[in-house]
Each structure stands twice: as C-alpha cells, then as structure tokens.
C-alpha cells in the first residue's frame, strides 16, 4: 500500500495504549497510570463527550459489603434474569470494585449531598459530568489524551503478541499515527448498528473487529435484541419517564404494554402494525417538575418541538441498542480481562458482559459497573505487563484486513451502502427482535454478500475515507457474528427471542463463541462451574 498518500506518520511510544475514551477507557487509563505506567489514550471523537456514557446518566450496580446479605441479594436478583449465563464470582468482584472505586472520583465529580452534608449516593452519575470528571482525572494523572484520533488497526509482534496500534487524526487531514506499547486495551464501546441510540454514532464495533483480527473470539453476540423507546425522529433513548408511559395506536386505542419485562416486545408488535403514540400524563407531578434537573436532556426535543409531553400525545419509535444495552462482545479469557492474546485486554462494552449480565440487558446498572471494573482490571494488568515487555516498533506487523487491505483488487467501495445493509438486517423488529430461523438465514446471506465485497475490494484509501470503510467493516462483521449466533441458539432465552423456538432449551445453557471473517464459525462452550456462592440464589 502506498504510504505517500497518507502523509507524514506520527510515532509515539507508551507503556499502555488505551483505545476508546468512554467510561471503560477512562477508568482503564486511570488504573494503568496509578500503577505508574506511561499511558496514551486515543479517542475517535472527544474523550468527555463521545460514547454511550457521555450522553446518558449511568446508574451503577451497587451493593455495599454491609449488611452482608446486600451483595448476596443483588447477585441472586441478577441471577434470576441471567437465565443460567451469569457467573456469581464475576458479579461479586464487580460489585466490590464499583463500591471501592466510585467514591474516589469525589475530587472531580460533585456528588450531591443532603442537608447534613452527607453524599446522597455514589451510584447514579450524570453522563456529561462523569466523563468530564474522568477526563480531568486522567489528564492530572499524566495520561496523554489524543482526541479525534481513531485507531484503525492493531499492530502485532512476530509471536502474535499485541504491541501497538495505528490510526488517523481526523482533525489533521487524516494524517497517520502509529503507537508502540507494551500492552493495548480495547475500550471502543459496543455497537448499536448505527441506530439513533443516543451517543452511539462512533460505536461501530471497531473493538470487536480489531480484537478478532488479532485472533480473539466473540461471546454472546446473539444478545443484541435490546430496544429502547424514544420520540419519533429523536435520539432521546432515556428511559426513566417512560416507566409511567401509556401507549396508543393511531385510532387512540390504548395498547396493552404495561411497564415490565414484556413492554418492549408489545411495543414492537404495535409498531409493526402502525404508528404508536405515547402519553406521559401519569408521570407524577413532582417528577415532572424535577425532570429537567434529574435528566436535563430529556426535555430538549419536547421543548424544541413545542410538545407538552404531559398533556399531549407524541409519536414514538424503538431504537436498537445492539450490544450497548445488549450483551455480546469480545470473549474475556482471564480475571484481568485479557482477550486470550498476549498484550491485549478488553473493557466495557467491547468485552462480553454475559459474565455479569447473563441473557438480559445490562443497561440500567450492570453495564456501568462492568465498564468501571473491567477497565480497572485491564488497566492494572496492562501496566504490569508493560513493565515486563517494553514497547518497541521493531518488527511490528499491521493486522488490519477488511476496509484497509483488500484481499483482491481494490476498487471504489461504498461504506454508506454497507452500513445501510447492516441497518436493514439489524434494526427491523421483525428481523432482530422477533427472530426466526428463516429470517436469520436471509439476513446471513445478505450480510455475507456485503462482507465478501468489502473484504475483497475495499481499501487502499487514506484519511477519513479509510475510517469510514473500517467502520463499515466492523459493523458488517459484528452483524454477521450476531446473526450466526442467533441462528445457532435455537431457543428463547432472555432478550434472544426465537418465534420458531419459543421455549428455553436447558441443553443450550452454554456460551456461543463466534469467530472468523470469511467463514463465521459458532461453537458452544460450557459455562464455568458455578461457585458455591450461587447456592445463595
């Protein structure tokens, strides 16, 4: 490939390189820097505003060690909706790490206090303030933050160990950077398959693609069928007010979709039949009044459209959460969140959250606690590894395939068309939420064709065109792993709903491990023997 087209290359050396500056990446950088490592964090957008954390209001899974039954109860409660795929040991570790770490952010995040000056709680944070605090914390710890600098591919040593990454600077004409590091942490978030899920545009599954190119496997990718309600045409997928919502069809008849576990399915059914309108009239008056200071962004679309949501009905839709409030991701191979490849760690939504969430959405509490914990463990482990394995550019090989280096003759390829194809398979409720073997097979064929074309011909571009093609490749690859595992899971379990297999199949209390590009393979993997702790549940 011609280097000349890409201009001068910037080279940096770090002990630990963190890819992605959301909650998981910032906590990873914090932990690595506290271990004494020289850390560089690269972020596709801006560390502080980019990603699912920043625009949301992450409530963390939280149980203090005292009284002792608090944690056991929290785990037992989660296990009831994990449908056999959760692991209590991991849950306990996450609860403990979250409880220890969150209060340490007090120097940067103003936790609200009551009249006695006591912190009201440490678990519910506002996204923008949280990410602003984390950014300040890592800057103060000496982490070098490169904004607008997406990673495009990993770099590996001859023995396969990961030793860095390469990417571009989107605000410097797409010029190239290359960073050698003793260890790399992938914290690039999950993917909503480019839905209008709030804050998720940069989350194109790049972490999945890069990890898989290094030889890592994916786990739980069938659990991408989470959907969240939002005013039609808006991105405002914030759920709290909708806990009191009533829904109506075009004729004004109320839809039977009460607050509870089946609500999304019922709404999706109604949306397949026609437009759905929402009333928030039941939201208690005191909550209505406090809404702007609880979740300041929720009222923005209403105010700007001149809608009074408490008195007028407004049209709603459901946006795909993909793996963001879904679960799948890179298979975690060790307690320190290693990806099974020397030098490579995964954190947050880039990692599979099956271990702590099981088969039900981790949004609402578990995901944040996982992002913080997995980031912290990965950061510590990466820093320790970097002490043994110094960074070096010598012999590093670039691993990027589809979208960067075509296997056949390069010819102009449309990233936009590939993205549209992914959206067409992963967004519709009658494909991804209500699944059938036949429908999934059709999705598989459509996506296989898009992949073959991208892998064979897309690439050789520089700058932001290369980024768009890589994002497209990551989206297509992620969608293919999701469809393949959904096809293999011939049952209904948690958020994975098969109309042709409506019951849970006890034999499928296994993880589905996906891997591969040109040929995707799926294999079952037994779940680690439940610890004695589970008997509490």
């Amino acid at each position, binding site marked *: 490939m011609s280097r000349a087209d890409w201009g001068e290359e910037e080279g940096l050396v770090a002990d630990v390189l963190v890819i992605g500056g959301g909650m998981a990446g910032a906590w990873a950088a914090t932990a690595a820097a506290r271990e004494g490592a020289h850390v560089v964090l690269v972020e596709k957008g801006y560390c502080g505003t980019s990603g699912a954390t*920043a625009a949301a209001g992450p409530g963390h899974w939280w149980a203090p060690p005292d009284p002792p039954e608090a944690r056991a109860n929290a785990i037992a409660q989660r296990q009831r909706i994990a449908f056999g795929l959760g692991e209590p040991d991991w849950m306990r570790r996450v609860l403990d790490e979250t409880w220890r770490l969150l209060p340490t952010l007090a120097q940067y995040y103003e936790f609200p206090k009551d009249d006695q000056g006591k912190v009201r709680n440490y678990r519910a944070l506002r996204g923008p303030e949280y990410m602003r605090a984390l950014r300040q914390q890592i800057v103060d710890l000496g982490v070098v933050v490169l904004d607008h600098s997406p990673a495009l591919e990993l770099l590996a040593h001859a023995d396969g160990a990961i030793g860095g990454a390469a990417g571009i600077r989107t605000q410097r004409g797409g010029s190239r950077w290359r960073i050698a590091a003793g260890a790399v942490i992938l914290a690039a978030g999950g993917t909503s398959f480019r839905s209008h899920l709030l804050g998720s545009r940069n989350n194109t599954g790049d972490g999945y693609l890069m990890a898989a190119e290094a030889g890592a496997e994916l786990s739980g990718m069938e659990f991408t069928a989470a959907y969240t309600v939002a005013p039609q045409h808006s991105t405002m997928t914030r759920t*709290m007010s909708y806990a009191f919502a009533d829904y109506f069809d075009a004729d004004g008849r109320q839809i039977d979709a009460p607050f509870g576990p089946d609500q999304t399915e019922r709404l999706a059914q109604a949306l397949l039949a026609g437009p759905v309108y929402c009333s928030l009239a039941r939201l208690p008056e005191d909550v209505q009044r406090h809404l702007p200071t609880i979740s*300041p962004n929720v009222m923005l679309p209403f105010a*700007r459209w001149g809608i009074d949501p408490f008195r007028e009905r407004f049209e709603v839709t459901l946006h795909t959460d993909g793996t963001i409030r879904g679960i799948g991701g890179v298979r975690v191979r060790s307690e320190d969140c290693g990806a099974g490849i020397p030098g490579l760690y995964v954190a947050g939504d880039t990692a599979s959250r099956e271990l702590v969430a099981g088969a039900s959405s981790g949004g609402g509490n578990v995901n944040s606690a996982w992002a913080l914990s997995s980031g912290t463990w990965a950061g510590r482990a990466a820093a320790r590894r970097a002490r043994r394995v110094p960074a070096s550019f010598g012999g590093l090989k670039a691993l990027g395939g589809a979208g960067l280096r075509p296997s056949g003759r390069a010819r102009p390829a449309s990233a936009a068309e590939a993205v549209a194809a992914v959206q067409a398979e992963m967004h519709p409720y009658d494909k991804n939420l209500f699944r059938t073997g036949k429908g999934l097979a059709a999705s598989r064929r459509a996506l296989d064709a898009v992949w073959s074309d991208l892998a064979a011909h897309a690439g050789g571009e520089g700058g932001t065109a290369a980024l768009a093609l890589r994002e497209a490749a990551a989206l297509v690859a992620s969608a293919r792993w999701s469809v393949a595992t959904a096809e293999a899971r011939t049952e209904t379990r948690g958020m994975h709903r098969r109309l042709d297999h409506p019951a849970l199949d006890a034999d499928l209390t296994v993880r589905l491990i996906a891997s591969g590009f040109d040929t995707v393979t799926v294999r079952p993997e037994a779940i680690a023997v439940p610890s004695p702790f589970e008997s509490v549940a």
Partner: protein
Amino acid sequence: MIELIVAERCTACDRCVEVCPSNVFEPTAAGPPVIARPDDCQTCFMCELYCTADALYVGPNADHAESADQLVVLASGLLGQYRRDSGWDEWRDRYPNEQWLMETVFRRAAEDAR
C-alpha cells in the same frame, strides 16, 4: 441535528470544534466555525453544554434538518437550556444535579405497576 451557530453570540472560541464527538464543525481563520459536516451530527446536544455563549442550536430531529429559523430560535429562549438545566458554569448554584432521584422514580413506577 446541528442547525445553527448564532454568529452574533459566538465568540469564536472553537470549543465546539474541539468537543464535538463527530467532528461536525470546522474552524475558520477569522470568526465563528462553520457546520462543515452536518450529516455526521449524532444529535447528542453535547456541544451546547460546552458553549458558554449559548450560540449553538441542535434540532431534535436526527433524521433530517428542520431548517430552524434563527430569529424564532433566538426569541424562543431555548438557547442555553441544556447548559442551564444541567447547572453548568454560572448556573451551578441554581440548578442542582438531581440524577440521584432517578432510582426512586423507577421504584415508584414498579410499585404503581403492581
């Protein structure tokens, strides 16, 4: 999606250029930045939080621009709403962060549904 940079309010600090996660804005040699890549906007409203001049307006429609009228938007008093309600900068002491109330709202909803 992003619709307006109100020129008479903008101080050309270029903070929006820096913080936009989708790199929507482009700085100019003299004067306010321009909205160079509106189609990349993810309608996250984050730029408005960081704009202390309240010069930015993000339309709520993520599918297409609604061609907001600058005079109407200015008169609406909606510029700066997000920053104010969030209690950022000069609003710090008047708009408390009540995110902690969220779980009680969910609890009440669950009780209601029973």
